């Protein structure tokens, strides 16, 4: 990977901080052609470009697996840390403690999160750390050739015909229950929705947990799989249209009164959600939990913004840290003066 992001000559359209979309790209992907993860990387590039995110402030974090390779394929000029299997949350937490000004984008998979990493996932959600936590969810272990993961649906089959007989972990329900303040589910094949969700997540302060169905074209795209592209497309059950208006743009949407919910996000951006027949409000935790149950019992999966609590205090805020990044505090602010040590010694005599 290039270590210095050199702007390409004659760059075309630039964003609000003067960067071309090219500058949000990473190295060439090494994932399979057609992999849903690549589509998600494209959406991340697009969302960061449009939101004018400064790559210098971004840290990309991941665990192990196909999904966790993908941070190399976007935002090449940002720092990245490919950590150990299932333990990205702790590395992300440490990084945010060191520098509260960072924008943390974590990419995990369904095995990395739901199996080996479920412990750290659970505690990350509890803490409401400011991080975007994306699960690229294909229901299987791609990098070790297609074993079931804990998000595989009951009755789903492997290519070899093996049937999954354990119930799936619903990472969205779990995240809501545990205290994540922004929980969404989307589909790598739904560009418009995924873009809106990602931009809204970038505008949120707190844990934004995004479970993105991302079919594995090599090991889990066959008939009998409930995580195939065709199955996902036909069972996607959107909770209405999402319209994201960033804080730096004029609001020019015009909805019939009573037809939308308007959610104000941390940075001043707004998310408009068209109401469906059922009046779904993502600020209602009970409704969020029940819509997940209902759609599951119908055999579909609800997508869109499932739950949001825009003003919930995040973990960094709760620690009452100084405004400057701890990492850059000078010696005089972190080493107490000599009289402090003398007083401590005096007290021990």
């Amino acid at each position, binding site marked *: *990977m290039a*270590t*210095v*992001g050199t702007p390409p000559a004659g760059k075309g359209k630039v964003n609000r901080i003067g960067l071309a979309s090219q500058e949000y790209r990473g190295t060439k992907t090494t994932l399979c052609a057609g992999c849903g993860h690549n589509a998600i990387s494209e959406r991340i590039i697009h969302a960061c470009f449009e939101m004018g995110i400064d*790559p*210098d*402030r971004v*840290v990309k*974090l991941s665990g192990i697996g196909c999904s966790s390779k993908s*941070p*190399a394929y976007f935002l090449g*000029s*940002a*720092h*990245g*840390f*490919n*950590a*150990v299997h299932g*333990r990205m*949350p*702790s*590395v*992300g*937490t*440490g*990084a*945010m*403690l*060191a*520098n509260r*000004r*960072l924008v943390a984008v974590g990419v995990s998979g369904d095995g990395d999160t739901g199996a080996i990493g479920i*412990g*750290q996932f*659970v*505690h990350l959600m509890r803490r409401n750390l400011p991080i975007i936590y994306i699960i690229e969810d294909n229901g299987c272990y791609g990098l070790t050739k297609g074993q079931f993961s804990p998000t595989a649906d009951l009755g789903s089959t492997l290519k070899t015909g093996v049937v999954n007989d354990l119930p799936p972990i619903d990472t969205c329900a779990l995240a809501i229950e545990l205290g994540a303040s922004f929980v969404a589910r989307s589909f790598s094949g739904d560009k418009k929705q995924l873009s809106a969700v990602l931009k809204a997540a970038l505008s949120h302060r707190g844990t934004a947990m995004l479970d993105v169905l991302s079919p594995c074209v090599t090991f889990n795209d066959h008939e009998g799989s409930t995580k195939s592209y065709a199955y996902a497309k036909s069972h996607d059950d959107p909770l209405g249209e999402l319209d994201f208006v960033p804080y730096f743009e004029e609001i020019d949407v015009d909805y019939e009164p009573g037809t939308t919910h308007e959610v104000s996000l941390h940075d001043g951006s707004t998310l408009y959600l068209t109401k469906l027949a059922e009046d779904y409000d993502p600020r209602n935790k009970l409704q969020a939990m029940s819509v997940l149950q209902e759609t599951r019992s119908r055999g579909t999966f609800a997508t869109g913004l499932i739950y949001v609590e825009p003003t919930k205090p995040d973990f960094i805020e709760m*620690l*009452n*840290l*100084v*405004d400057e*990044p*701890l*990492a*850059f*505090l000078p*010696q005089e*602010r*972190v*080493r*107490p003066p*000599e009289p*402090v*040590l*003398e007083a*401590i*010694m005096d007290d*021990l*005599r």
Partner: protein
Amino acid sequence: MAPEVAVQEAPSQPTTRRIVNDFSIQVATVNGSGSQTANLVLLRSIFRMGIPVSGKNLFPSNIAGLPTWYTIRANRDGYIARKQDIDFLVAMNAQTAQEDVVSLGPGAAVVYDEPLNLATLRDDLTFYPVPFDKLVAGVCRDAKLRRLVRNMIYDGVLASLLKIDRAEMERALEKQLGRKPKAVALNREALDVGFAYAEQHFEKRDPYLVEPMDATAGQVLIDGNAAAAIGAMMAGVTVVTWYPITPSSSLCETLIDYLRQHRIDKDSGKATFAVVQAEDEIAAIGMAIGAGWAGARSMTSTSGPGVSLMSEFAGLGHYAEVPAVIFDVQRVGPSTGLPTRTAQGDVLSTAFLSHGDTRHMMLFPSSVEECYTMAIEAFDLAERFQTPVFVMTDLDLGMNTWMSQPFRYPEKPLDRGKVLDAETLDRIGKFGRYRDVDGDGIPYRSVPGDSMPAYFCRGSGHNEWAQYSERPDDYRKNIDRLRSKLETARNWLPAPVVTINRKASIGVIAYGTTHWAVVESRDQLVNEEDVQTSYYRVCAYPFRDALTSFVERHDRVYVIEQNRDAQMLSLMKLDLAPELAGRLRSVLHYSGHPIDARTITESILIQEGYRVETTRAEPSDVPQSAGVGGE
């Protein structure tokens, strides 16, 4: 101040024999009965009379109900290691009293709770029965408080019997209970009652006495965990992530207290540190590594079972070259193991913690003062060498009370290591995260958010530009550089403390808390058998070259350590030429109790061919006669 040893008399008679400032007191109580205050008051008052002391708490893995023993050793010559023999027993625990009395050596004295009726057990001891319940009832009406105050009565009794300065005892009590005037008054009354009872009822029939000295002036009393905590704060730690585990919990807990007092920004009222109690040790080190990568001075503290869990991240830290400081307060493990017993059992596993060719830096503090200085050094080393650094203390050092010269304010500024800046970037041209620009194996690093060129951080599969690579030449080049970085580190790490005795043909090597027993044992060897020794105290791993020359100088070298398998000796064999490795022998102690001088002396004498009548030791204290790696 030499002991005046008179004619041995029957202990039931008043004695004229006097043993001054050289004895150990053991207080046997029930865990959770609030004896800690009474024990610390006793320790501090002897210390304030100028006599060298140490206090060791032998406690069970239990909150309340099981037996616990607190041992105070007072020694005019400054020997503060554990001593096998108990000279003065305070028997407060019905459960263990009989066994405690039976295991005493002849001539010892026993203060005991009268209803325990111990005086009939032995006729070669001096007994002082005290009706604690009756006495405490007169002091304290509240039955709930009686349990706590009761212990202070034995302090009063001991003040009378041992001639401890009562004014010092009262000052020590005030220090212990400072902000609770009611508790001070109540406890002072208990002291007085105990003292008065002893004065009225007992004739001194044991030889043990305290007399003022001037050997502790200006010194402090502190445990190693608190000392390490002060060091970490003075090192400018900014991120502390931890998971509770005995015996390391008090390190972070004390650190939190100090940070809250001294590291809150005066203007904003906000913290210049972050502390997170993680969900487990894996997360604790993961956070420390994440914070170290992002430029913080980060640390965690744990013990053996936690170190095992940290293994994969420690390896990642080594290969990805991320600074972090890990305090390992060693104990007996795994699982529950003996969580409240000490050991030096993590040496070998920590040196190579994780897979591949991982090799970690370790520091070995011997004293509370070194817990402080090495804590500071560890943060500098971690950032200088961009790697996890382990500070290897143990339960004996971490949780017991030691005297020490006051800690000195650090003279050296923080060493943040090779962090890339614009000027350096100009000089080196192009940034390669893992490029050895200066020929010392240490590359430059950038930190997220510092506006310097970024890199993608991952395990071992990368070239010097931090690009993913599986090429054989890239892998080899990188891990060869990691080795050269460790070579550079050898001479940066704390130097061994070497005492060469020109008359000695044998050497001893020790590290950590074993040091204190070695100091005493070397004197015993000279005084009793005229066996001269040189001494090499290891302070860090990887070893310095001085190790080779030390072994070369001596025919036989005894490596003394508190584990079964001679872990430090094994590490040394990897570094030494085979003919030198053959000179190494072992003295091993692994009972869960701190090592004592007699164990070492006997083991060395036996291995040197002397006829030794072994002491009345606990079975596991029997010296190891077979040396590992003998000729």
